[in-house]
């Protein structure tokens, strides 16, 4: 197994180093999906 951070660009790594609360989104999604059983995205992006 490779170091998962090894191939990140400087910008990608910098974003990880300076951004807080990335995992909070997973926590919120988990709560939401658990309650709604909204388990698989169908498609995205159709505009109004």
């Amino acid at each position, binding site marked *: 197994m490779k170091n998962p951070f090894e191939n990140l660009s400087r910008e990608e790594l910098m974003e990880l180093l*300076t951004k807080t609360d*990335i*995992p909070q989104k997973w926590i919120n999604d988990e709560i939401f999906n658990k*309650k709604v059983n909204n388990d698989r995205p169908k498609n995205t992006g159709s505009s*109004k």
Partner: protein
Amino acid sequence: MIDQRIQVLLNEALGVPKDIEMFTEIYTEMVLQELEALRLSGNYEEDERFSNNYGTMIIKEYSSEISGEDTWHFVENNPNFDIETWKKFPAYKNKFVVLASVYEDRLFEENDLKPSVGGSHSFEIENFKITNHPELGDIFELGDYEISVQCSQSQFDNVESLRTVVESTVTHEITHAYQLYKRYVNDNKVGFGSETTLNVMASKNRSQFSEGWNEFLTCLYLSLKLEINARIPQAFRVLKTQKFNNYEEFITALKNTEAWEDIQRLRKFSADRIIDELSTIRDFEDIFKKPMAQTDVREKINMWNDVLQFITDKMIDMGFSINPYKNLSSNVISNPKLFFKHWEKVFHKRAKEYFVRIAKLYGML
């Protein structure tokens, strides 16, 4: 006077800074106004998602960006703006991204879902400095905020109903900015220090195969002191909107906060359960999945020290202030059960500290 006393107690007991109060109020107002402007604009993208219970759902996705110039304009013209208070935390021209995902009402009503607000704060290390403004004096450009609301149509139609949850997330993110500011001013250090390495690990090393590993990473994130420090004022913002006659009522209200969920999650973390999850075959799918999960987790643990050392080295190269990484012992690294036991102890200790700190809020509410 009572408010002042509360603030002083809060500062002393919890390290919740009075200096962020003004920004919390002003930025909350700004985000709520932006949400209302988004609603009135009617300008959204439609996102289709499928639910077993609801079939295809249409979600309205709103998005906007408030430039640093505009946020500062909003701040300095807000009736709550006080230049002397601001000088204690002279944040200047911070960009905001405001997002809203709006769902059908029935989804929230039938599932007892509350609106949730995610947030993040980020900064540019190249601009991480105090500069002198000819009129304002010292200013500190701390970076960008993202506030992301998930709510029902009715909640979105009444933006004021989102105030508490928006405010609590805004104060959480401002606390992060304040942590960075104080560390820089007091110690001339850039960044959050060694906890950044664990935050990065929690943000970008999830497993495709093991839910137990991902739960471990979530607990790792929740156990960070920088996180707990931001979650205390966040909970305070929610609890202060409620009235309590006694400690039991306070605990009942506390049990409805995200902080309580965090504490329970840390308390319930179990090394034995993860090991059990990795080794027990419960259905046909597990016959294929579990060996991959075991290998994946073992490799992630084997690389633990190397990866954290790699992140630490990169941080030093990029100009962050960070102490050398202290390795976990080879004994702990070589045995997944010992590895998770090590972290179980850390998480349970942090859960206790988190609870003690949040329980102290009772005397201030």
